[in-house]
């Protein structure tokens, strides 16, 4: 992408002398908008978390979702982690996320490095081969036929292989590699290092930011996988967590089942909300550590790419 963006400069703190003060009205308006935006994200998270930690009596007294916490009751989590379908799904999702992320990162980093040197053999052709996939994409039906034709139905590989290489991520990593001064690699080469050694000893240690961000993208993608599980996984022993969340909570909420769901509301609501919490938790826990790299790792990459 071609955007004329110079690296973000650090602004001096405080208001520049030439800028008007926004005044009371301006401040109030800004504050209101920002508060609304932040609350729109935090309130649902809060309500779900508090309800999952509430006892049956508290939920009954509130008539459903609990906004103000009263006491702490971990029984919902005890039930979830006691080895039922939800424990199994969490295990499947963890496995797919860990294996998939590692696999994707290896493929992406290798290919990004292999494509990072203009003038190398077949460079333009290979780059075109990868970038063309942005413009020409297969539809759902042929992809389904290929994956099932390879015998991947009901295999967890069906959740990993089809999305193993994201060309977008590859472009981001490649752009980052290309920003590394070539002198570093040249000097290593003169010292007798091969390409693989240059990649692992010189390029990767300098690229932690972009590998962290792209790794997060992959991990989130694998953790969130739902539709491919709907397509390829029929065995509910192998359902990932999103698939369970959907059948357990959303399908239970659909109009036909609303009556049944309402009848059994108090005992199951805390459990349902606990499932939501354990689905959110890994993302919410990992993301703040990677967030500071977003602008550096992603914008630089995407904008320069």
């Amino acid at each position: 992408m071609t955007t004329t963006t110079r690296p973000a400069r650090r602004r001096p703190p405080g208001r520049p002398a030439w800028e008007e003060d926004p005044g009371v009205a301006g401040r109030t308006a800004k504050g209101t908008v920002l508060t609304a935006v932040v609350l729109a994200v935090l309130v649902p998270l809060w309500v779900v978390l508090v309800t999952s930690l509430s006892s049956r009596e508290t939920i009954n007294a509130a008539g459903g979702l609990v906004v103000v916490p009263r006491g702490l009751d971990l029984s919902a989590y005890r039930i979830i982690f006691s080895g039922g379908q939800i424990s199994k799904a969490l295990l499947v999702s963890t496995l797919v996320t860990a294996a998939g992320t590692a696999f994707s990162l290896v493929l992406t980093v290798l290919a990004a490095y292999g494509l990072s040197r203009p003038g190398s053999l077949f460079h333009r052709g290979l780059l075109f081969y990868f970038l063309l996939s942005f413009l020409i994409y297969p539809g759902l039906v042929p992809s389904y036929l290929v994956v099932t034709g390879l015998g991947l139905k009901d295999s967890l590989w069906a959740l990993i292989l089809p999305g193993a290489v994201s060309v977008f991520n590859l472009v981001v990593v490649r752009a980052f590699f290309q920003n590394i001064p070539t002198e570093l690699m040249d000097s290593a080469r003169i010292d007798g290092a091969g390409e693989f050694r240059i990649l692992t000893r010189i390029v990767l240690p300098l690229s932690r930011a972009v590998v962290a961000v792209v790794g997060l993208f992959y991990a989130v993608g694998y953790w969130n996988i739902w539709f491919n599980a709907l397509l390829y996984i029929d065995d509910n022993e192998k359902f990932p967590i999103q698939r369970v969340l959907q059948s357990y909570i959303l399908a239970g909420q659909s109009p036909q089942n609303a009556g049944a769901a309402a009848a059994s509301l108090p005992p199951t609501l805390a459990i349902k909300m606990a499932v939501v919490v354990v689905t959110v938790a890994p993302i919410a826990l990992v993301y703040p550590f990677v967030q500071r790299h977003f602008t550096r790792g992603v914008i630089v990459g995407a904008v320069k790419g």
Partner: protein
Amino acid sequence: MSADQASRPAPVVPPEPVAPGPPASRRRRAERPRRSPLRARLRRDWPLLAMVAPGALALLVFHYLPVLGNVVAFQDYNPYLGDDALSALLASPFVGLANFRDLFADPAFWDALWNTLSITAFQLVFFFPLPIALAILLDSILSRRLRSFVQTVVYLPHFFSWVLVVTFFVQMLGGAGLLSQELRDAGFSPPEIMSNPDTFIVLVTAEAVWKDLGWGTIVFLAALAAVDPNLYEASAVDGAGRWRRLWHITLPSLRPVIVLLLILRLGDALSVGFEQFMLQRDAVGRQAAEVLDTFVYYQSIATGDYGFGAAAGLFKAVVGLVLILAANKMAHLLGERGVYSRS
């Protein structure tokens, strides 16, 4: 590749440095009459090729092979004609454009296309400008700590799956959700939000905004940070107020990014969040919630009519390609740089 192969000393290439970049290679080509022979380049670059190979293979099998598999759109594909997909494909009879004829004669297809395009248009008006506005607002916040707190919070939902996003909306706004609960306690009858086909377009847009408003600001914030502050100072000295500065400096600075994102959105006009619609189609009904992607799924894999579904999918892919090429062309004509002006 194994480590000992890779850590072998690089093939000795005499005095010239080993292809440090485009300028150098061009220079070398100019100095010498011919580029170095293929074998020498292969000996020099094979490790790079070996590194690209696994990724290229994955793309070949799971991207380009299915692209070729679109031939089923021209077939009366029957999965039971062979032991596997390939032999079934070879055994299935070709029917020319019959699938497309059926497709264009199917009113459900036109309904799905119409729903898709109206949702895209609606979101272009009511979603697209919001991240720009929020980015400008965030950029004007002086306290760095407040700014990064807001950013941390609003980026988060981008990483939630659609299953989670829809779950949150059901819990907050659904029939048994928090809003209904509070309204009932206050003596009102709660409105039907999650399953109302008439307001579905607003609902899906609200969900998309909730998920991606914050994430959408990143690219605009980066562009805003790159604006030369001297421009603002000079215009302020010349008497421009904050709205004039917004109009004459901020927005023009964002224009390349805005055009770029508009092109990408237009090229993707036929996609509107597949999983989001899959998840809500049953609650809201086909009339409002059937979009092209869900149409493809329900007409092919759900029913077994693969040829027909593939035709619908191929239609979408071809129109999408034409759209993005056209949008990019238009951007060039308007003097913008577009998506792929560079080599």
